[in-house]
Structures are given as structure tokens and as C-alpha cells.
């Protein structure tokens, strides 16, 4: 369970509050999409959950622990976070080493680490990349490998920041399938509204650091007016269906 209670956050005093009085609860096992225009504070929200930054106001609870400097290790072991920018997520010399970095740190045996790496490679379809240098990968491949580095930790909660950016259609579909197979709590931040439609039952719409709407995905994503008021557009799929209907009406 993840609970935000009246959370307020500012990077600097001059810039002012990036997030303001946020309250919501995400239950264990839920899949939640977080959407909103550029600069709405979505990535900031995720960083708060793993304790990379701390709120100036309010509190954040992960299960029964309040996120703070003291219990970071415990909280981070529970949560996997796939960065928006995969360039900085990867730092080991080879793909394999990078995927094994986390499990090794948590003191798993050599065989167990190997097993975890193998599974993560298979799940993300990156077996052929295993011995490549991270710097030899394409943008999409980096994204898949970042995903693998987090999957190998087998966390209870998974946070994805723009997981499908840079992925080709096939890999995007692979991600969706993978996402559905994963158990645990999952949160996706993305501009790919179709992805949310495909994977999340609940959506939180964020704008200028405030929750505009927190509801069933369909209710939000089918609401053209609501989306446009907040700098977003209908998912392409819906847009397509609408055009099709218009077309058929005009023909008949």
C-alpha cells in the first residue's frame, strides 16, 4: 500500500511548490496510470515514493513505514524504479553485469544472481545483448535493459517512468504483456494514453502539481473535455474509432 497524505514538495524556494497537497492511496496489487502534461510533477511524484527526495509537507507511507532517511534501505528493497532517462540508470560495463548489480548487492548467492539475470533477460527479450557494453545499445534496447535491471530485483512495487518511450511496436506489445504478467503493485507514468488504457484500471490526472482527477481509467481517458482542459488529448485508439464512426456516418 502506498499512501500520500497532504504531500507538498518544492525543489527550491524560488521555483515554489511543484507538488501541492497531494493525498491518495494505492492499494496492494493495483495498477495505476499517472498522466499529465510536461512538467506536471509526475516524475517528481515517483522520486518521492522511493525517497530520492523528501516532502517538505505531509507524509508518505509505504505499507506501515513512513518514507524517511532511516528506513530507506527497507523501502528501496520493496520498490523498483525504472527511470525516465535510461542513460543514467545503466552504469556497469556489460548488460549482464548491470542486471546482476542489484541482486548481488542484496547478498544473493552466485547461482541465484545468475538465475535472476537469466529470467530478466528472457522476460525483456534481451538475451542477445547480454555481453554488450551498455554504451553500444540503441535507445530502445537501453530501455529494455533498464527494465531488466529492475525486474531482477523482484520488487513488490514497480514504478515505471515512460516505459514505452523509444520502444518499437513489437517491444511495446511485449512490455504490455510483461506488465500484465507481473504481480504486485504497478504504477506507470506516461504520455502514451493507449498504454494506460491497455494496462491500468485506475488513472490519476495530475496538472500543475495537483490531482485533477483520480478515477477509473475509462472515465478519464474517454472524457475529451477533461483531457483537453488539462493539456492532453484523447488516446489515439479512441480518436481512431471516432474518425471511423464519422466516416461511416458520412458514407451512409
Amino acid at each position, binding site marked *: 500500500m502506498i499512501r500520500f497524505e497532504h504531500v507538498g514538495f518544492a525543489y527550491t524556494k524560488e521555483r515554489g511548490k511543484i507538488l501541492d497537497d497531494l493525498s491518495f492511496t494505492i492499494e496492494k496489487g493495483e495498477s495505476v496510470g499517472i498522466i499529465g502534461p510536461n512538467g506536471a510533477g509526475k516524475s517528481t511524484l515517483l522520486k518521492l515514493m*522511493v525517497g*530520492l527526495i523528501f516532502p517538505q509537507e505531509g507524509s508518505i507511507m509505504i505499507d506501515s513505514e513512513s518514507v524517511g532517511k532511516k528506513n530507506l*534501505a527497507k523501502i*528501496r*528493497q520493496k520498490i523498483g*524504479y525504472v*527511470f525516465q*532517462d535510461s*542513460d*543514467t*540508470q*545503466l*552504469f*556497469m*560495463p*556489460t548488460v549482464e*553485469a548491470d542486471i546482476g*548489480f*542489484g541482486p*548481488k*548487492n*542484496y*547478498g544473493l548467492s*552466485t547461482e541465484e544472481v545468475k538465475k535472476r539475470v537469466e529470467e530478466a533477460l528472457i522476460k525483456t527479450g534481451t538475451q542477445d545483448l547480454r555481453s554488450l*557494453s551498455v*554504451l553500444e545499445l540503441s535507445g530502445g534496447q537501453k530501455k529494455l535493459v533498464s527494465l531488466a*535491471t*529492475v525486474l531482477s*530485483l523482484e520488487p513488490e512495487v514497480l514504478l515505471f517512468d515512460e516505459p514505452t518511450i523509444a520502444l518499437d511496436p513489437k517491444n511495446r506489445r511485449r512490455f504490455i504483456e510483461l506488465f500484465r504478467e507481473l504481480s504486485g503493485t504497478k504504477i506507470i507514468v506516461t504520455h502514451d494514453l493507449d498504454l494506460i488504457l491497455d494496462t491500468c484500471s485506475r488513472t490519476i490526472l495530475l496538472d500543475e502539481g495537483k490531482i485533477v482527477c483520480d478515477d477509473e481509467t475509462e472515465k478519464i481517458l474517454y472524457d475529451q473535455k477533461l483531457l483537453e482542459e488539462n493539456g492532453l488529448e484523447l488516446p489515439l485508439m479512441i480518436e481512431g474509432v471516432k474518425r471511423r464512426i464519422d466516416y461511416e456516418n458520412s458514407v451512409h
Partner: protein
Amino acid sequence: MDKWTEARRSLQMMETSGEESLYRKIHPLAKFLTTILFLVLVTSCARDHLDVVLAMGVWLYAYALIGGLSAGQCFRKMWGLFALLFFVGIANPILDRVPALTVGHVVISRGMIAFVSLFLKGALALLSAYFLAVTTGMNGILSALLKLKVPVLLINVIYLIYRYLGLMIQEASDVWTAYRLRAPGQKGIHFSVWGSLVGSMMIRSMDKAEKVYQSMELRGYKPEETFAGEEKWNKESTVYLLICVPSLCLFRFLPVFSLIGSIFTGR
């Protein structure tokens, strides 16, 4: 392979410890201490005692030979450093021309001897560090440092720099490409933009370094655990120390060359 890729590759050599060296099974701490001892003994040689420096060279040569290590690799990868050593020492024979000895008709100056011994000392130090790196790997070295109670903060810094160096090379390469694309037909980077280029690269690097560190932390990086080291102290390590330390001292403090010479000449 372009120069950037090559630089990165060389960096990776420290990742996996020594290809097929006999010293692989030796505990990192034993190798680390031996290397430190070697460095201290070599750098403390007086500059006009070329024979002692040579004796240390013989020791290192034997060490490499027994362990199946190749010095050639090191020369190829770090020739720039060796060249630097050369230029640092070259002033000696120019400035100090007092004759020291004559071999046949050739007069050898004190400066010449100082130059050769300085160069050798530097080269030996580089080589021994290189051997430590390839037989132990970065993780091993850091675990040795941790056992020696080096502050965790320092270990963090070393590890982050090491981890980050590869990305920094990439960054430099990207900046270089971006520059070239917008300044076609120029050779090198024009001096007027050096400042801003380097500046922007530094800022980008700092920002990235912070994120890389976050990524490490999020995946459970904790020096005390990451470098806890699976290696246990074994018999081989004791034997290794028992051979290396006394033989090193022997080569350093006994006039090995004169002794060998006297055996042959019987004097």
C-alpha cells in the same frame, strides 16, 4: 574502433580480474599489500642507485613471469603515461652533465643515470599497479581498502568515479560529435569555444553522476555490502605473502647484483 570506444574498452580491463593468472585465487588484501610494499620500496630508491631499481625490475619481471602476466598489454594500453614519464625525466641528462662513469669510451653522466632510474621507477610503479588491477579487479581492490578501514566516503568516491568514467567518455564523445556537426570542416575544437564546451560538459557530468549514484543506491549499493567480498583467506594467500614480502625486501636491501656478480667472478 574510434578512440572513444577504445578508451572505454581499456577501462573495462579492470572489471574482470586477470585473464588466466595464477594470482587470481589470491585474496585481494594480500595482493594489495604486496603492491603497496612494492610501490614504497621502488619509489624510495635513491635516484643514483640504478642497480637497486634494476633489481626491483627483475623481481617484478619474475613476478609477471610466474603469474603469467603480460607487460606488453600494459605498454600498449598506457603508452601515453610512459611517454609522460619520459618527458618528465628528460631534463636530468640535459641539466646534469657531471660524468659518473665511463663504459669503454662512452662517458655516462650523472643526469643520464638519474633519468634512466627515474623512468624505470615510474614504469615499474605503473606496471605493478596494472598487475594489481588485472589480477584483482576494482571490486577486489575496494574490498581490500574496506578491510584496511579506509573511510567509506572515500571508497564511494573512488567507485563512483570509476563507474562514471565510462559514461563521461561517452559524454565527451557526444559533445565532440555535436560540435563537429555544427562546425564542419574545422580541425579540432576552436580555442574560443573550449571554455564553454568544457563547462557545459562538466555540468552535464555532475548532473548525470548524481543520477547514476541514485540508480546505484536504488539497487541496494552499500559499500559495506557491495564490497564485502566473497573471497576467503586461503592457504595460497599465506604462501603468496610469505614468498613475496621477504623476496621483495631481499631484492631491495641486499646488493643482489653485486652478490650474483661475485658468485661468477669468485671475488
